[in-house]
Structure formats: C-alpha cells, structure tokens
C-alpha cells in the first residue's frame, strides 16, 4: 500500500508537456476560428465539434491526468459523456421524427409565437383561428 501510495502521489509531469498541450490548445482555437469563416454547409458543425472534442480530450488526458490516473476516473468521465449522448439522441428521436405519418404537420401553429398578452392567464386568440400550418 505505501509503495503504491508513494508512486501515485508523486506522478509529476514535465513542464514541457504542460506547455506543449497549452500551445496545442491555442493553435486548435486559432484553427477552429479560421475554419469557421469557410463554408462547408452542415459540415461546419461537425468540424467545429470535432476540434472541440480534440481540445477537450487534451484537457482531460493531460491537465486532468486521466491518462495517468486510475482508469476508474476515465470510465466515469466516459459514462457522463455517454449518458449525455443518450439524453440528446433519445430526445431527438422524438423531436426530429414527429409528424411522419400525417399529411398535416403537427408543428407550431404560429412559429413566432409570443401569445402572451399583458396577463399570462389570458392566452387568447391566435391558436384556433389560425388555419395555416407551418413547420
């Protein structure tokens, strides 16, 4: 136990590594800003998020020591990201696939809805009278 403990408390990374990772993060920031001025259509998001993911991985692995620490922490981190993904994906199973079997789209009746007038209890008008159906 004590030998192990000494080994763990004294895991010191070289200064150069920290500075290199920091430099890489700044460079990646520059890259992602530069790339955002190019137009890839839908791919812009993918590129931006991929670069962000690389940056986050660098932070987690080196600054947060996940590369060197107990792998349990890495596991916890991955679990968090995984469940977040489940939350997003499963919610979008619904929000992205509504109204696929109807001819009338069940989306918002008034897309620019701010139905509230002075009194929130009174939500008069707009809904039932509007027959136009937008998406």
């Amino acid at each position, binding site marked *: 136990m004590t030998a192990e403990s000494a080994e763990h408390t004294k895991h010191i990374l070289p200064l150069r590594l920290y500075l290199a990772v920091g430099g890489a993060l700044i460079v990646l920031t520059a890259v992602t800003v530069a790339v955002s001025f190019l137009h890839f259509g839908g791919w812009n998001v993918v590129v931006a998020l991929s670069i962000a993911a690389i940056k986050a991985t660098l932070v987690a692995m080196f600054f947060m020591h996940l590369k060197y620490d107990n792998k349990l922490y890495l596991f916890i981190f991955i679990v968090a990201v995984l469940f977040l993904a489940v939350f997003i994906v499963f919610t979008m199973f619904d929000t992205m696939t509504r109204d696929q*079997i*109807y001819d*009338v*789209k*069940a*989306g*918002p*009746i*008034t897309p620019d*809805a701010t*139905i509230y007038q*002075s*009194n929130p*209890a*009174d*939500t*008069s*008008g*707009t*809904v*039932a*009278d509007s027959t136009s*159906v937008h998406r």
Partner: protein
Amino acid sequence: MDTTGTLFMPPGQSTLSGEVDSLFYFIFYMSVFFFVLIVAGTIIFVYRYRRRGKAGLTSGVSHNTTLEVTWTVIPLILVLIIFVWGFKTYMRMNVVPKDAIEIKVTGQKWFWSFDYPEGATTVNELVVPVDKPIKLLMSSKDVIHSFFVPAFRMKMDVLPNRYTITWFEAIGAGNYDLLCAEYCGKGHSEMLGKVKVVSDREYAEWLEKGPGTGEGLNPVDFGAQLYKSKACFTCHSVDGTPNIGPSFKGVYGHKASLEKGGETAVDENYLRESILDPQAKIVAGYQPVMPTYQGVLKDKQIDALIAYIKSLKE
C-alpha cells in the same frame, strides 16, 4: 355489440376497442398465471419450510443456470410478443384512414369545442355518424388537455400552439363519455363532454339544422341554450351560488366591486367586455381564469347571452 363491458373494461364501441381489449386480456391472464405461480410458491415454501425450533445449517445451493436462463428467456419472449402486438394496434390508432371526416377540436379551460367541416360548431358535444372514420385535428388554447373517450379506447393530448391528430370509428349509436385526462387546473374534472354517435341520416339532418344559430328562438331562450352548449355553467351558476366565476343570478343592474379596487355597474357593456376581454375587470374575490370568447361567440350569440343574463332577476 357488447354493451355491458367486462370486469375491467367498459363496453368497447370503436373499431379498435376489440383489439385493445384482446391484448389487455392476454396480458391480464398471463399476469394472473405468474401472480398465482409466485404467490402459491411463497405460501407453499413459507408453510413447508417454516422454522421449527432452532435454525440449523441450511442448503448451500447458490444458483442453477438452467432455471435462471428459463425464467429470463420465457418472460422475455412473452414481453416481446406483447410489444409487437401493442405497437401494431398503436399504429392503427395513429394512421388516419384517407376518407375520414375531419373535425377540429379545441380544448380550453374547461370545455371542448368542435368545428365541423360544414361550418357547424358545438361545445362539449361531439356529434358524429356511426361507422365512419372521424379524424380529429386538435389543439388547445391554453394548457395541455387530453381527449379521452373510454368507450373508444382512445386518448390523445391536446397541446397549445400545436396540432395533434387522432381518429376513431364508432361501431354503435349512443352517447359516450368524453373526459379530459391531462390535468389542466381547477375545472379539470368538470371538463366533460359527450360523444353522440348517430346514424348517417340523423347526422345529415342535424347538420342541416345548423346547430348554434338560434334559428326560431327568442333571444332569452337562445341565450339559455348557449349557456348550456357553450359550457358557461362550468363556472357560472344561475341560482346565486358562487362558483369559479360569479353567479349570473341577479347580477345585471347591480354594482360589482373589482379586484383592483373600485366598482363597476354591471350593464350590457360590462357583460360584453367580460365575455370578450375577461381579464379587464375582475370581480373581487375571483381569479382571472376565464378565457376570452373572442372568435368563439358571434355577435348575435353574445346579445342572446346578455339577454339571458338580464332575464335572471333575483
């Protein structure tokens, strides 16, 4: 035609109610089987292996793979059958037949209104012909409601600022309860209606008469009819008892003190304003919960209602 229902289910009156009921009873008898198995097992074990005197060492059996796989796989197969069965009917409940009559349903605190393709409107009473698919295009004016007809085994939430769609086809003439199944506030349990299923001929005649126009009635009688059909009674009594809103009895010609302070004379103008813009002058002691009837009531109908309220003297 099943009119009595079973122990658990009310009489089924739509084309799909039979399908729902058969799956219900499939699960039911399966559940009874497993329940009896487990309870009988418990009772037998408790009796057979009851402790007599001191508890000695007992058997050390810790698992049995065959047994465990069996009681995992059999329920798994059963629930998968149920899943597929339930999903098939669910899709039939959601895919509307092409030739369906489209009726617009509006939920509002706390009544239902229905707009028919021929221009008629009704409140809290949906009149439909038998053996014809009816498509309901639904939305709400305020909060979420849910359109629930137990006899048709149908339910669909009614959302504000969005359409939801469902359909049914009634198989027997009669009056069926319509309930709101999504909690919507004070009058939630009063948000009741009827689905009146009639023959084709009666439906045509009914449309002919043009419900809600007050043809051939004097204003007071027409107002009395509207009081019922537009569900004013949900919140306003005519016998003097205060409800969610003030009673209509004797209200005309009096002065009412207001929530914001001050008072107002209850005259034609005030009554009209209260119907069209209910939040403008709230009577002291009541909450600003009344929806506007702008666009719901026509001028002639408002006049009739005022005439009716005027007639309710103390």
